[in-house]
């Protein structure tokens, strides 16, 4: 049904858009090992996105392929949370964003393995292994940076202050999730687990949980409703530029 398709787009767009941000780090990482790791994580997320977007095309009955959703939707049709689309201006922001998003996504996927939709359950099953690695990679860096030098600590504190206003959005139950009981995971349920992991990692990093207010949505909507930040339009302009310039082409 349409709700299932919409739910697949939510989870798929999160992965597609975060993967895009990781792709932008290519040839810019602090060490070659991180070059490899970031590309690897970007690739895993891209793989998750492809499966989920393809599933959306089945679920909504149109049979449209993954590329339709990635390249020919407008900004307001993308359903990712706003945190996924943020530009990461330094490595601390990158790992802070990754820690938050992968911890959240891992907790959701763990539950999603029990989804009544067998395709979603299988995607989640595969994703859990990947996300465990992603989360650990991010967590290790957060600890190193937080408990590293004065500079790295200051940057990491700033990064979490910057990321935090978009955290509340991750745990707001969307109507689609409410209606898909048994198929979708209600993100409210994973908040405690998320808080536990974050507290543990931040404490190992000798950091505190940021005390900053949540960022409001627009006209009652946030990322899940297609209401994004101003960064999103530029991201899509880049992502879609070649595909849109050659709408008749096959690749």
């Amino acid at each position: 049904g349409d709700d299932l398709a919409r739910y697949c787009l939510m989870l798929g767009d999160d992965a597609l858009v975060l993967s895009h941000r990781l792709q932008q780090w290519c040839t810019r990482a602090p060490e070659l090992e991180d070059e490899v790791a970031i590309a690897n994580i970007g690739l895993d997320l891209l793989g998750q996105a492809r499966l989920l977007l393809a599933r959306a095309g089945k679920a909504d009955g149109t049979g449209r392929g993954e590329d339709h959703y990635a390249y020919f939707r407008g900004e307001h049709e993308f359903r990712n949370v706003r945190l996924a689309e943020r530009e990461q201006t330094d490595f601390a922001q990158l790992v802070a964003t990754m820690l938050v998003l992968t911890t959240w996504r891992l907790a959701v996927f763990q539950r999603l393995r029990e989804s009544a939709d067998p395709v979603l359950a299988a995607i989640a099953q595969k994703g859990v292994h990947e996300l465990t690695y992603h989360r650990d990679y991010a967590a290790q860096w957060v600890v190193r940076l937080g408990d590293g030098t004065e500079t790295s600590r200051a940057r990491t504190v700033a990064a979490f202050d910057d990321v935090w206003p978009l955290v509340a959005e991750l745990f707001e139950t969307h109507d689609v999730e409410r209606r898909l009981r048994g198929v979708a995971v209600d993100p409210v349920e994973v908040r405690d687990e998320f808080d536990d992991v974050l507290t543990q990692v931040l404490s190992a990093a000798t950091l505190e949980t940021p005390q900053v207010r949540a960022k409001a949505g627009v006209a009652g909507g946030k990322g899940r409703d297609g209401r994004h930040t101003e960064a999103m339009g530029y991201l899509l302009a880049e992502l879609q530029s070649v595909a849109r310039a050659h709408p008749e082409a096959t690749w």
Partner: protein
Amino acid sequence: RHFERYFEDVIARDQRIEPRDWLPEAYRKTMIRQIAQHAHSEIIGMQPEGNWITRAPSLRRKAILLAKVQDEAGHGLYLYSAAETLGGDRDDLTEKLISGRQKYSSIFNYPTLSFADVGVIGWLVDGAAICNQVPLCRSSYGPYARAMIRICKEESFHQRQGYELLMTMMTGTEAQREMVQDAVNRYWWPSLMMFGPPDDDSPNTAQSMAWKIKRHTNDELRQRFVDMTVPQAEALGVTLPDPDLSWNADRGHYDFGAIDWDELKQVISGGGPCNTERVERRRAAHEDGAWVREAAAAHARKQQQRKEVAA
């Protein structure tokens, strides 16, 4: 004397020198430089292709390209490790790269101007690299030879993927076919230059061949590449931008036109279309990452101290 005889013996019998073996200083230096320049090429080579990851026009092509660029980072890592077995230091080698004291393959100083370039780099540039590298799998230095075996295997895979992309594009729209032809026009001659200067202008070839670091001359490899590539171009339906290209039944090889060696010299000596940008990007990544590497080192020291206190 004894060590030297052993070294020469190993070389003569086509066996491999290993890190524990004695080796002449000149061999060590040459080998470190060669491996490092190869590593630099892998790392700098990520840039022209990496330029299209975020814009790849299908998710499948995006995944293929991202995986390929990741492989190149991996190749860079193996190769720097091989250089380390000879006493090379990665930081020192990176420093030499970004200060311009060590080179990388000149082909990466050309820009990628359309998505077809991704395919053409796979087909021609990886193809030429494989011609150059297959013999290196029998290099006299063991760790390098083993790294090359793995790298060549992955590069063959990349080459096939590149060719397959071009095949798909050639059966697409007119604009796609033009993109492919244009990319071929731009990359054909630089690919031929990848084999280095002509034999009569290649001073290091003799010593490298004696040490079995190198097994074929530049011109031999170049000819092999041309012979291999012309039929592939025909199958693809593109025209190689050389009016003098033709089959020579007497030689049993394709003849080809004169290479513009002045262009190669200009590019090698820094005046190519992207030299500054390539080195600048690598420098920026290295310098922007300094605080991160320092943080990791500081954290490791703290952990060590904590362990000692606890012990």
